[in-house]
């Protein structure tokens, strides 16, 4: 492509910038279309509301087995923590001088548990668990926190329906929250 072939591009960008609703054409024609199958394979984002949770289900009891094999060496047999984060307990501690932040006490959204376990755990082999195993481990961790009964089965619908205890305690960033004076003498 010669230089003069490129000259219309800045004009095209100006038009696009002024009229976002008119962005039917790409300005540079760089890249290719992503197919639905490619997107489905890579899009592992689970929304806080449970959007994009996959089919499948898992029981608390199966989750206990998977947890013992895959998770307990870092998080402790009962999620009490070790090399990995503590996962259990801490309710009622957030307003004290010794807050214990766990899935049960701190996490605002239950589907985030599925998202994180699937994408990043276990640390030595992330994205190796089946969706069923991830549902099961999520169910077990929620059960350890008293948020699911021991005979429960977790799936997309039931996981999204769980209201986490700390859901309403997150606030937006109010900074600047400290107003220091720039005094130069006798401060």
């Amino acid at each position: 492509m010669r230089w003069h072939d490129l000259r219309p591009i800045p004009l095209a960008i100006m038009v696009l910038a002024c009229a976002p609703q008119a962005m039917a054409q790409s300005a540079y024609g760089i890249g290719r279309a992503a197919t639905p199958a490619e997107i489905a394979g890579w899009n592992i984002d689970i929304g806080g509301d449970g959007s994009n949770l996959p089919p499948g289900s898992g029981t608390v009891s199966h989750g206990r087995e998977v947890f013992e094999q895959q998770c307990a060496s870092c998080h402790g047999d009962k999620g009490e923590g070790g090399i990995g984060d503590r996962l259990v307990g801490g309710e009622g501690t957030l307003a004290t001088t010794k807050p214990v932040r766990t899935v049960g006490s701190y996490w605002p959204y239950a589907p985030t548990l599925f998202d994180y376990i699937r994408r990043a755990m276990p640390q030595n082999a992330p994205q190796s668990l089946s969706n069923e195993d991830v549902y099961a481990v999520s169910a077990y961790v929620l059960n350890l926190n008293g948020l699911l009964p021991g005979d429960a089965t977790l799936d997309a619908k039931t996981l999204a329906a769980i209201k986490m205890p700390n859901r309403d305690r997150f606030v937006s960033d109010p900074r600047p929250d400290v107003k220091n004076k720039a005094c130069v003498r006798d401060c």
Partner: protein
Amino acid sequence: MAESRDNRVSTSRRRFLRESAAAGGAVIAGGLAGGAAMAQSAAPKADNLPPNIPEWMKAPGDPMGSQLYGTPSPFEKNVVKNIPKDLKQYLSASGRTPLQELDGIITPNGLFYERHHGGVPTIDPAEHRLMLHGLVDRPMIFTMEDIRRFPSQSRIHFIECSGNPVYTKPYGKTASDLVGLLSCAEWTGVSLKLVLQEAGLKPGAKWVVAEGADAAAMTRSIPIEKCLDDAMLVYSQNGERLRPQQGYPVRLLLPGFEGNMNIKWLRRLHVTAEPAYSREETSKYTDPMPDGTAREFTFYMEAKSIITRPSGGQHLAEPGFHQITGIAWSGHGKISRVDVSVDDGKSWQEAELQEPVLTRALTRFRLPWRWDGKPAVIQSRAIDETGYVQPTLAELLAVRGDNYYYHNNAIWPWRIAADGEVTNALA
């Protein structure tokens, strides 16, 4: 010929090993790096001092090509990343820039601070892909060659970890221990706005969920306003391709936003109406207040500064003239002023700012000072173009309480003892 050159090189290596051992060269990394580096010239050999001709002038030096990439002088070998030796594990961990050893505003690539959540992946750029999907007219996939075809730009910006430092003791000994999760580079890449326009944003696009190709599949949600402002897809740093530790082959750059949002090894941008509420942005990078609430989406790094010379771990050899110098920065824009106090905060003087003063970049400040040899406490205070004044640690704690974790931008004083030793005045 080859044999004699080998001899010469090995002679020089022996000489270096001998001298660095004598200078305490066994001390590596950690909080002692500053002191060790300053002590290297402690015992000069008289043979190399005037009026004698130094030995390095009496024979040719190393031949061209003996270092095809290049490394610093062997006498600077203690200027390395500051990596704690007592970490629980090294896959999700951080290493600090030795700020007190550096001049100017640019961090050399090998010393840029690191923070990883699932180790450092080795990624073949020919096999790396960036997917852009969600609320766009045209979901797309880009190769690295595609990304480099877009019109490029280069800009100088800092990146700082939001936990730099925490609010609780023990505080660090050196500037690096305290705020070494901070670095600044010239970044080259593509305006993210341009790439988003290529796909066409749909109405309702409010957030972009960015995901890394590391083993943590690190995920953060970014407001669309930032993505359409100064965000970049970056592939080069200080002129060369990104180091693996900095996200090779491509990372996100969000000038002024907390470090972990600048997703490294970027593989996917998901345009959404809502944030993902990922584990990182709910359970991790949030700030607990004393009443049990927690602040979320605390993106900006507020104005801050630190004196790097003289600073903790260093030593003033004698009273008399010393230049005070350090760095200041703000996630909200340019630094407009830096004040320095040499009397424990009783009075302040305006420091000279070195040009260029760039938005969301480190700014070097300097103040000439005559030390009278008496104990002193020195500190710096940054003011940015929004008028925000860097607060004291006490002022921060009074508002945020003891459970707060990130975004500690407190003024940090250094104590200078009568013998010239410099230590952390709050430790």
